[in-house]
Each structure stands twice: as structure tokens, then as C-alpha cells.
């Protein structure tokens, strides 16, 4: 008897024919009840979509962090007056500049102050930042001079300026053919352009709006701005020194020199940490939505499969009568469930990539396609399909063929 069965071993070892036929028939059967199938898919689509978005956004943020690292270096910090500090104490230029002498871990400092303003050219207006900067500012921010030169120590109190890329564009469009050496009038003073900057990426520790800015010597700014307060000090720190040590040094210094002034120090590392935390919150949210949707979707799929099994009892009975083994029936329904979930997974992957694209777009970050997340999406769909199809498929396989035939 068993020997007889051995004689009739299937011709193709891996059951490719059956798989092929099962696949086609499962697709047809799902398409036949597409309304019901679609309803079951919504959960899977949202679930997979969230998971994909989560992983993709994680990748995008990570890449962004790496980019900012590379751009600016991790040896940059910013120092700001603490929010709790009263208005009376201000950063003092001399005190700031001398910190490098007293605290050896601080290599370079670049204090700056900004003031929003507007310039007019004929009828056209351009809103921009006026920034008072030191020579070191250009180096710390890795600014590239396209034409002319940067602000130097020798320009103290002079009405010179270096213009950002967008401001240069504006000047060109409004009729200045030779920008270098031309004059810009801002807040009633005429500044001579001594340099033009390349476009610079925003974000990280860099001050906001540098592409639209005109940069003037900090000494000039301190004399001409309506509120001549140094808002921020950028600094380069010594490598391999802990940020805790740096912070202690800086607090100590300003505490002593500036009548107990409290400062807040932000490092590139902390910024990246903050970015990652933000991303984690987002991921957590998406992860929660994803898991819940996958559970709901999985139950939906299981339900659809159970309905399908009970509707097709006579088909199951017939197939058993024609020689289908229990395992054949089981794999038939498993395949159907997996196809259902893969279809949902496919739509979900598109949705997830769409979400992460929008996230990158609105964060002004570079979008990248995460192939890992696509593979993950298909993987998770398959697992959900197998997991949720298992019980219905087993129910189908264990049906009494006679009862199934007589129904």
C-alpha cells in the first residue's frame, strides 16, 4: 500500500505545476470577490504603509544626519544666552574673543548677530538678513566664496558686505551686471560688495537664511543695528574632548567674566540626537498605527479566508474526491491568503514611499528610496498572509470530504 504510494511519487519534486495552477486560480477567486477582498486589504495597506514609511523616514533622517556631520564637522558648537537669563547682561565682544586664550578646548569662536531687513530696487523688494560676522564665521560655516573675498579682520567698522547666493541673483535680475564692487543700500547705509557666496545648505547649526543674507563686519553691525546684541557664538572645539567638559569650561568662563551670565551650549552631536529623537517619536507613532492596522488587517484577511472556505466547501470536497491531499488543499488556501496580503503589501509599499517622500519634501531633506523597506514590506505581507491564512487553510484541509461534497 505504502509502496504503491511511493511508486506514484509526483513527477515534479517541488510541485511547480500545482503552485502555478493554484496561483492562477487563487488570483481568479480573489478577483471574483474583489469587493470583499479589497475591504480586507485596507488594514494591510495601512499597516504595511506605516511600516514602510517608518523605515524609510528612519533612513532619510539617518542620511540627513550623516550629511550634516560631513558638511559642518562634529567639532562645532553654538553658545546662546540662556532663556532664564535677564535682559541686562549681554555677550561682550572682548570677553567672547578672549575665551580661546583661557579655555584651550575652544579653538576658534565666531560670534554673530542678525537683523531682518528689506532692500528695494526700483519696484522690487527683497527681504533678507543683515548679519554681523567675523572672519572666522566663514571658516566655521564652511562657506565657499565664489567671487571676491570674505570679511576680514582688517575690515573693522567699514561698510563692506559679502552677499549670499540668492541675494546675488536678485541683484543680477534687477540690473546690476557687475555685482562685485557695486553698492547695496540697507537701513540707510550704502555697503560695497566685496564677495559673493556659493549656495549653502540650510540646517544643522548654521544660522538661518545665509543664502539671502548680506554679511557685514561685526564691528559695523554692532554700531548700526537697532538692537546691537550678539545673539549666538559659534565655536570650534578641540577633538576628543567630551561635550560635558566643554560645557563646564564655557559656563565657568562666562560665569566669571560676564557677571554670572548663564549660557546654553548646543553641539552638533546633540542636534543629531534631537533629530533622531524626533524621528523616533514619529517612528513610534507609525509603528503603533502599523501594528494595529496589521492586526486588524490580519483579522480581516482571516475572516475573508474563512468565508471563502465555507463558501467553497463543495469545491474542497470535489478536489479531495479527485485526489487532492490535505496538504494540497491547505497550500491552495495559504497561497490565496498570501496573494491577498501581498497585493495589500504592494499598495502599502507605494503608500509608505509616498508618505516618506512627503516627509522628506516638507523637511527639505533629500528623499531616498529604501530598498530594505520594500523587501521588508513584502516579507511582512507574506508572514501576515501565512499567519492569518493558516487557520482557515487548516480548517479547509480537515473538512470531511463527504460532508463537503454533500453540502
Amino acid at each position, binding site marked *: 500500500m505504502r509502496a*504503491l*504510494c511511493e511508486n506514484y511519487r509526483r513527477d515534479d519534486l517541488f*510541485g511547480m505545476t500545482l503552485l502555478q495552477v493554484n496561483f492562477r486560480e487563487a488570483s481568479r477567486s480573489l478577483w471574483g470577490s474583489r469587493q470583499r477582498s479589497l475591504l480586507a486589504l485596507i488594514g494591510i495597506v495601512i499597516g504595511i504603509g506605516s511600516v514602510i514609511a517608518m523605515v524609510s523616514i528612519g533612513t532619510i533622517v539617518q542620511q540627513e544626519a550623516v550629511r550634516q556631520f560631513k558638511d559642518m564637522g562634529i567639532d562645532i558648537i553654538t553658545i546662546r544666552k540662556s532663556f532664564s537669563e535677564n535682559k541686562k547682561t549681554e555677550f561682550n565682544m572682548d570677553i567672547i574673543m578672549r575665551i580661546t586664550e583661557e579655555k584651550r578646548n575652544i579653538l576658534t569662536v565666531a560670534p554673530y548677530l542678525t537683523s531682518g531687513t528689506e532692500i528695494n530696487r526700483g519696484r522690487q523688494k527683497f527681504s533678507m538678513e543683515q548679519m554681523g560676522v567675523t572672519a572666522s564665521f566663514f571658516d566655521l560655516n564652511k562657506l565657499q566664496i565664489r567671487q571676491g573675498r570674505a570679511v576680514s579682520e582688517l575690515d573693522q567698522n567699514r561698510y563692506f558686505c559679502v552677499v549670499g547666493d540668492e541675494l546675488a541673483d536678485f541683484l543680477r535680475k534687477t540690473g546690476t551686471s557687475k555685482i562685485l564692487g557695486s553698492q547695496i543700500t540697507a537701513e540707510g547705509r550704502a555697503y560695497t560688495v566685496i564677495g559673493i557666496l556659493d549656495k549653502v545648505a540650510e540646517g544643522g547649526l548654521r544660522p538661518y537664511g545665509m543664502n539671502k543674507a548680506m554679511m557685514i563686519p561685526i564691528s559695523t553691525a554692532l554700531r548700526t543695528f537697532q538692537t546691537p546684541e550678539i545673539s549666538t557664538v559659534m565655536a570650534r572645539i578641540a577633538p576628543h574632548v567630551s561635550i560635558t567638559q566643554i560645557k563646564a569650561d564655557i559656563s565657568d568662563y562666562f560665569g566669571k567674566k560676564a557677571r554670572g551670565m548663564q549660557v546654553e551650549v548646543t553641539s552638533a552631536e546633540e542636534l543629531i540626537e534631537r533629530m533622531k529623537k524626533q524621528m523616533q517619536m514619529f517612528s513610534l507613532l507609525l509603528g503603533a498605527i502599523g501594528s494595529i492596522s496589521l492586526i486588524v488587517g490580519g483579522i480581516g484577511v482571516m475572516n475573508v479566508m474563512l468565508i471563502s472556505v465555507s463558501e467553497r466547501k463543495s469545491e474542497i470536497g470535489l478536489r479531495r474526491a479527485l*485526489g487532492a491531499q490535505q496538504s494540497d488543499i491547505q497550500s491552495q488556501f495559504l497561497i490565496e491568503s498570501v496573494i491577498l496580503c501581498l497585493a495589500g503589501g504592494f499598495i502599502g509599499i507605494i503608500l509608505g514611499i509616498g508618505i516618506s517622500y512627503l516627509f522628506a519634501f516638507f523637511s527639505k531633506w533629500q528623499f531616498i528610496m529604501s530598498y530594505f523597506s520594500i523587501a521588508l514590506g513584502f516579507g511582512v505581507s507574506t508572514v501576515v498572509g501565512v499567519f492569518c491564512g493558516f487557520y482557515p487553510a487548516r480548517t479547509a484541509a480537515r473538512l470531511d470530504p463527504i460532508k463537503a461534497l454533500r453540502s
Partner: protein
Amino acid sequence: MESLMLSIVDIRKSYRVGPTEVKVLKGINLTVEKGELLAIIGPSGSGKSTLMHMLGLLEKPDTGTYHIDGTQVIYDDDRVLSTLRNRKIGFVFQQYHLLPKLTALENVCVPLTYRGIKEGEVRKKSLEYLTKVDMQDRANHRPNEMSGGQQQRVAIARALIGSPAIILADEPTGALDTKTGEEIMDLFHRLNREEGITVVIITHNPGLAEQCGRYVKIIDGMIYSA
């Protein structure tokens, strides 16, 4: 023994419905010779279908032994039973039981897909068997596009395609009008006569039974030769 296609000895089967036990088959002995066309008649509810399910390995008897094509059936392994069904038995049902979403050709293919034969080969063979039952023109039609008689022909092609040891037909003309029923019976006779296929036909129509080589009666779970 050589000439025996199947033999059952003292087969009994009862169902438990609530507290009562319904005895459906009460000790049945039956042999079918190779190349025989046997009819089984009996009134409704006498146990004909149960016997056919037994012969078709879909049902396990409470007691008794069953030999088919020289081997004794052992009922403990689904894989073995399914393989035997696939290789040895061809079923024809009163309600045709074609799969509604498949074409005639695809319906006929089904038994062979469980043998893992290449699809192209299966389809070729399927068309061959559709031709045998004169249904080659309807190969791409679905069951709801065919008449009852045509559907039953497709079902017969499906029963034949695996070259089984025996065809088991349970009231194959029960859902057909007299003329179509006769055509279907003619087909069975022709297959038996020309190709030597062993056929067991279950019917409650004594007229049809008498045309067959031999017939037996089932009454209330007991078998009587005519």
C-alpha cells in the same frame, strides 16, 4: 483474483445522529470484475451513495475489508488514500460538480494537476479527453454556459483523464431529462465496450439498470443480486 477489480467483504457503516445510531450499510459483500459494467439500484435512502463513497475511498467503513486493483486499502494515511483516489478512481456525480470559475478544459485538468505533470501536457491530454466525450468545441466554455448533459460529459472526461481503474457514477442521469440521460448512458456503454473501462453506475431507475451487464439491488443497507 487476477480478474477482480474490487472486492468488499462484510462492510458495515453506521452514523450517530444524537443519541441514536443509524445503520446505513449492514454487511455488504460485492465484487466487480475488470471490464465490467455494473449497475447498483435501490430506493432513495437505501445507502447507495454511502456505498459509492466507500468504494471511492472517501469514507472509512466501521468494519470490513476492501481490495482495489489487487491491494488492500488501509485507512490511516491521508496521503496514501488521496493518491489512490487520484490514480484508481474516477468519480461522476449527479450534480456534475464542475468548478464554476474554470473552463471545461481546466476542469478536466484538475485530477492531473495533483500528479504534478507539466501543465502543457495536461492541457493537451485534457483536450484529447474532451474530444472523446464530444465536447472539444466547448473547451473554453464555463459550466454556466453549458447544458446539463454537456456538463456531465465534461465531468466524465474529468473522471477518465487519469486512466483510473474504475469509474464510479452516482446517479449520473438523475438531473437530466430522459433523452439526455440515455445519451449519457450510451457514452458509458461505449466507453465500457470499446475501451474496456470498468464502470459502476448507481441509479434508482430499473430500466437503466437492466441495460447494464449486471445489476445488484440495495435495500435498506443490504445487497441482493438480481
